[in-house]
């Protein structure tokens, strides 16, 4: 294969590739490497296995085998040895989902949620077309539509329709203007749809506002920078509950009475501002991770500040902080339960109040309700987490070797 002469060396052919040894691949190697890689690892593996063996059967029995799946009232659930009372969740699901929203008007909530889900799917679907239009619909048309559907037709829209009815002389249109979409006060709103509303508003407001605050904080204009720094540090230095209390009691003091925000609007504003300042700090971290050369490369091409930020810096900054952004979103989604403290009837509050219903009250009712609530929050948060992982992988393509 090789010839040797007086220390010189010359290879005359390429060595063949050999298959890897058996220890490198295969299930046995996987188990050895991941479960019994060392003494500590082996001990932990055994302890975990014992814990699972101890807990899982009881859990499965309580959740599924002994569970009461359907019953007219709490009688069956109160029987000794009964597990989770899913019949109770089924009976109360409408209240959990909509709170006290009038039962004959639930289609308005359903339609709003459905449209929102469709628009969100359009925007989140990788490779979907015309996302600009989707974003415009989502940010401008959808909030207006949602307001008119959920709260009731706005007076201005009513006036426009009435005007049209007068001009055309159409009685049907006049009737629509007068009676369609009657107002449902926010005191009747509640449940999952309020939780989703608070979370969506928080998420949709906090990302753009956070980007603006982060840019403001890095601005070379001292006044703008000062305002952003003070806002970020003050709101970040205060618990969300305090922000909510302040929004609830102080906003009405500063705003003229006729402009005083609705009782649901106040916590919405509070949550949105609170989420924005956290987002601002996450985005600032991303901005600092963008190498100086990227700014210079963009400058040298004559791109204006706005183009540099929008096309070069922000896409890279936001991509690097996707985990942080999603972390904020998940925290925000769970923090929406705190709006209950200012009297908003969110999902958790709805679950919490119903467990005392005398018709259903029983030893397993509270646990069932809270397990259901936990499952709901987990499904949403886990979905966000998975989605962000997928996006990270997609966006990392530019950085792949």
């Amino acid at each position: 294969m090789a010839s040797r002469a007086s220390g010189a060396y010359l290879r005359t052919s390429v060595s063949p590739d050999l298959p890897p040894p058996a220890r490198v691949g295969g299930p046995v190697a996987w188990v050895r490497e991941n479960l019994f890689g060392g003494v500590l690892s082996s001990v932990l593996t055994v302890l975990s296995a014992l814990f699972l063996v101890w807990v899982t059967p009881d859990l499965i029995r309580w959740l599924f085998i002994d569970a009461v799946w359907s019953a007219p009232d709490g009688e069956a659930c109160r029987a000794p040895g009964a597990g989770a009372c899913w019949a109770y969740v089924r009976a109360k699901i409408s209240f959990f989902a909509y709170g006290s929203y009038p039962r004959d008007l639930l289609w308005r909530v359903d339609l709003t949620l459905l449209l929102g889900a469709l628009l969100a799917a359009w925007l989140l679907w990788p490779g979907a077309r015309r996302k600009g239009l989707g974003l415009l619909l989502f940010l401008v048309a959808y909030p207006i539509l949602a307001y008119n559907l959920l709260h009731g037709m706005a007076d201005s829209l009513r006036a426009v329709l009435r005007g049209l009815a007068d001009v055309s002389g159409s009685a049907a249109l006049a009737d629509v203007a007068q009676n369609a979409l009657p107002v449902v006060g926010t005191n009747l709103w509640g449940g999952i749809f309020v939780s989703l509303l608070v979370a969506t508003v928080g998420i949709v407001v906090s990302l753009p506002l956070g980007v603006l605050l982060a840019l403001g904080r890095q601005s070379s204009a001292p006044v703008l920078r000062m305002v952003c720094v003070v806002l970020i540090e003050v709101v970040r230095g205060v618990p969300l509950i305090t922000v909510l209390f302040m929004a609830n009691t102080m906003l009405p003091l500063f705003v003229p009475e006729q402009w005083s925000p609705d009782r649901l609007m106040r916590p919405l504003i509070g949550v949105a501002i609170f989420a924005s300042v956290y987002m601002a700090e996450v985005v600032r971290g991303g901005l600092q991770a963008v190498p100086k050369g990227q700014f210079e490369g963009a400058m040298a091409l004559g791109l204006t500040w706005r183009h540099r930020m929008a096309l070069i810096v922000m896409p890279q900054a936001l991509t690097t902080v996707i985990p942080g952004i999603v972390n904020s979103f998940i925290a925000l989604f769970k923090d929406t339960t705190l709006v209950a403290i200012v009297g908003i009837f969110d999902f958790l509050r709805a679950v919490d109040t119903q467990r005392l219903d005398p018709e259903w009250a029983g030893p397993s009712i509270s646990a069932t309700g809270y397990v259901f609530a936990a499952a709901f929050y987990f499904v949403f948060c886990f979905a966000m987490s998975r989605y962000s992982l997928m996006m990270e992988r997609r966006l990392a393509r530019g950085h792949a070797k």
Partner: protein
Amino acid sequence: MSQAMPETAQPLAIQMQDVHKWFGRFHVLKGVNLDVSRGERIVVCGPSGSGKSTLIRCINRLEAHQRGRILVEGVELTDDTRRVDEIRRDVGMVFQHFNLFPHLSVLENCTLSPIWTLRMPQKAAEERAMHFLERVRIPEQAHKYPLQLSGGQQQRVAIARALCMSPKIMLFDEPTSALDPEMVKEVLDTMVSLAEEGMTMICVTHEMGFAREVADRVAFIDRGEIVEMNAPEPFFAHPQHERTKLFLSQILR
């Protein structure tokens, strides 16, 4: 400003008049005077920290000078950001570390600024980009991402990206110093062919072979001053200043 423009047969691309620059207390540029005619190729060399990079970065105002005047194509560089953005469109720059945009494909790197600042239609911008990618001999990489390319390929993309703006002047800031040795030549070849077409070029480089081949003048900078500037032949054969002699003896082994 127009009175300051000298009436010469070959108008000046760049005029630097008594340019001073400080980083904090550190005096980086100490009164640099440099006139560059259209079509002229100038190589700038000097020891590290001498201010040679700062000098060419002042020409497209990546660094702001604090005293003196810089005119590019007769337009003075000031704090007016809009004017600076316009000048930068006429002045291409190639960096030591390429500074390609990693989140955009090679083609998008090249079409971005023509589309957004020159308001070119996408199709025309792509055609122009492919033209210049062919010039730097990597059209087949157009749809890859920058980090999938070798250093030499990335630097050629960076050159093509700058050329897509149809610049009147090209600045090169040590374009080959971050490259593996075997990739230096492909980048230098591209620069030579650019020089042969009459592009006004200022190159900060230690590639003395390149300087000999294409430069009209070689400038030696040390401690923020142009110490010596001459045509390449006399510059290398008979350096006048002691510091030039010392520097050349260190890099020409």
